């Protein structure tokens, strides 16, 4: 029998009220406005594996992250942690210890008045993980060393560190409670590639040795390729493709995924054209009808404008779940590896 996944997310949705203040609204004669940050997302993450979320800025990745660790309450749908409703699981301290989050914004998540050693030790203390002060100090020192800082750095305050050093402090803090499930929202974006490699190697090592499970969020697709077992591509609050990592890079199926792959920077300076996804980025306050990608999609037709596509196994690569009528109908061009598919990004009008 299959093991219960560490995380199961079912039809998760989150809306925000983004109405203007009452007076302004009345003067302008407009109603309340809601923004659907996440709109019906489902996935699960088996133990010891990594699921990554990628997608346009503002598509709802961090909102999903905050929902799955209980920082936001869902507007709809549910989250199960090892088969238990999240809210029930989080009522138990031991379960809270087991799930931690590395925030996208390390500045905002570190208390500026605390010394780094206290920041890192806080979960250790809260969950009573060590006995004496000496043991705690040793553990903090070890955690700081693991992320490329030194035990002596524990005496300093967050403002005495560079951006990447602060990000490493928040990683050390997240690791300090020995979590089993870690949500990493852009964990290495502030790090140089060499420290990034150290952190990613550390995360991989922890996964291999201790079976950690990760929900990983990054804009850096090379990093995503290195760490993921599966990758979910989000667009305007929805999952448009959910595929094994290798398949996503060798045979991306959803037109948005394909366009995204063409926009990756060209490090090799081959002169490859970098094609931004064409068209206007739509507003989540007023999302397009049917398939939310249709105003920008070269394959869009009338059905796409009317009917929201469901996430289904793709023709030819059934291991990829894809929400696209063209893929379902078999009228999409044959898939090609990332960076070799110049024709899919070419509705270019944005620039």
């Amino acid at each position, binding site marked *: 029998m299959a093991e219960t996944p560490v995380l199961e997310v079912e039809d998760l949705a989150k809306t925000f009220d983004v109405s203007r203040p009452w007076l302004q609204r009345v003067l302008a004669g407009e109603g309340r406005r809601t923004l659907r940050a996440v709109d019906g997302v489902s996935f699960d993450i088996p133990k010891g594996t990594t699921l990554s979320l990628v997608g346009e800025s503002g598509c709802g990745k961090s909102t999903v992250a905050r929902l799955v660790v209980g920082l936001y309450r869902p507007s709809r749908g549910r989250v199960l942690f090892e088969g238990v409703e999240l809210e029930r699981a989080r009522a138990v301290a031991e379960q809270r210890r087991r799930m931690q989050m590395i925030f996208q914004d390390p500045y905002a998540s570190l208390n500026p008045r605390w010394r780094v050693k206290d920041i890192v030790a806080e979960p250790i203390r809260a969950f009573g993980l060590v006995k004496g002060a000496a043991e705690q100090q040793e553990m903090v020192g070890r955690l700081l060393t693991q992320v490329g800082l030194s035990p002596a750095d524990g005496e300093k305050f967050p403002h005495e560190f560079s951006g990447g050093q602060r990000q490493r402090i928040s990683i050390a803090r997240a690791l300090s409670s020995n979590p089993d499930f870690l949500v990493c929202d852009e964990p290495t974006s502030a790090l140089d590639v060499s420290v990034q490699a150290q952190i990613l190697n550390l995360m991989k090592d922890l996964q291999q040795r201790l079976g950690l499970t990760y929900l990983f969020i990054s804009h850096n697709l090379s990093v995503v390729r290195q760490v993921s077992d599966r990758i979910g591509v989000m667009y305007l609050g929805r999952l448009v493709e959910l595929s094994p990592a290798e398949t996503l890079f060798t045979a991306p199926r959803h037109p948005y995924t394909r366009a995204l792959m063409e926009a990756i920077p060209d490090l090799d300076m081959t002169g490859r054209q970098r094609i*931004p996804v064409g068209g206007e980025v739509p507003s989540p306050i007023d999302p397009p009808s049917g398939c939310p990608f249709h105003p920008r999609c070269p394959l869009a037709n009338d059905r796409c404008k009317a009917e929201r596509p469901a996430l289904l196994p793709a023709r030819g690569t059934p291991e990829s779940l894809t929400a696209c009528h063209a893929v379902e109908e078999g009228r999409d061009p044959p898939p090609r590896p990332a960076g070799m598919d110049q024709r899919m990004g070419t509705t270019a009008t944005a620039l």
Partner: protein
Amino acid sequence: MAPLLEVRDLRVEFPTRRGTLTALDGVSFDIAPGEVLGMVGESGAGKSMTGAAIIGLLEPPGRIAGGEIRLNGKRIDNLPYEQMRRIRGREIGAIFQDPLTTLNPLYTVGRQLVETIQSNLGLDAAEARRRAVHWLEQVGIPAAAQRVDSYPHEFSGGMRQRVVIALALCAEPKLIVADEPTTALDVSIQAQVITLLKGLARDKGTSMMLVTHDMGVIAETADRVAVMYAGRIAEIGPVREVVKHPKHPYTRGLMASIPPLDRRVEKLAQIDGSMPRLSAIPPGCAFNPRCPEVFGRCRVERPVLLEAGGTRAACWLYDPASEKRAPEAMRHG
């Protein structure tokens, strides 16, 4: 052409209870009009500090303890606060690494843009608002006209970052100091922002110091690149040379750590060990404890920038007088 920005022998110190830390030590470079200088290097190496020194916003107790900074030939490192503040808005635009420090959480993004535009360009409110929406569109904020009245916390991380970029650009400065401007952005918006920045450099002659960890962005945008390590410049040269044929052992390690896009590797290459703390920078070459090529002289004498075939590298392997020379393979990248 005379450089727009000249940084000479810049030294920044932090007096602390445990003694004075030297965060930048002998940093020199120029930026020509319309040129983009990329700046990369170890996290904590002093990239943001260099930017902060240029725009006159070093966080106390940090202070410039030596060297000079010139904009258009005029010294700007010793100006009184008020005078520097005016230069900062009008002539130097800054994009900070941390969007939250730039944005005031209490004001809508529109109000912040309008105020910046009005105070720097002296436009009336209606025109300033029109421009505010224009700049939000330029940086790819969807439905800019609707969202101009949102507060920063109502935006995603990447959207806030784009507002910060719009704030830096809206006063049309000659020099932009951009610290990780595209890190929080997805690749598509990133491409759009990079195109925008490159367009400003090309069409308006705007110069830029671009700090980023993203080598792809560097490769696409920068004309030259400076690589920093432990408060010093380790290597500087044309972008193609530095990225494709790095000469300094640190730069070589750095470039080797870039995760590949076209395949998955078991373990990423990394440079073992970590950068020394500012209070414990080793004598000689700061990279010597981690350097695979280290030899006698490296532990005693601090290397200066030397001609290294295409770039300049602060490494004794490129001194004809050294007992050890760069292996053939390294010299030709």
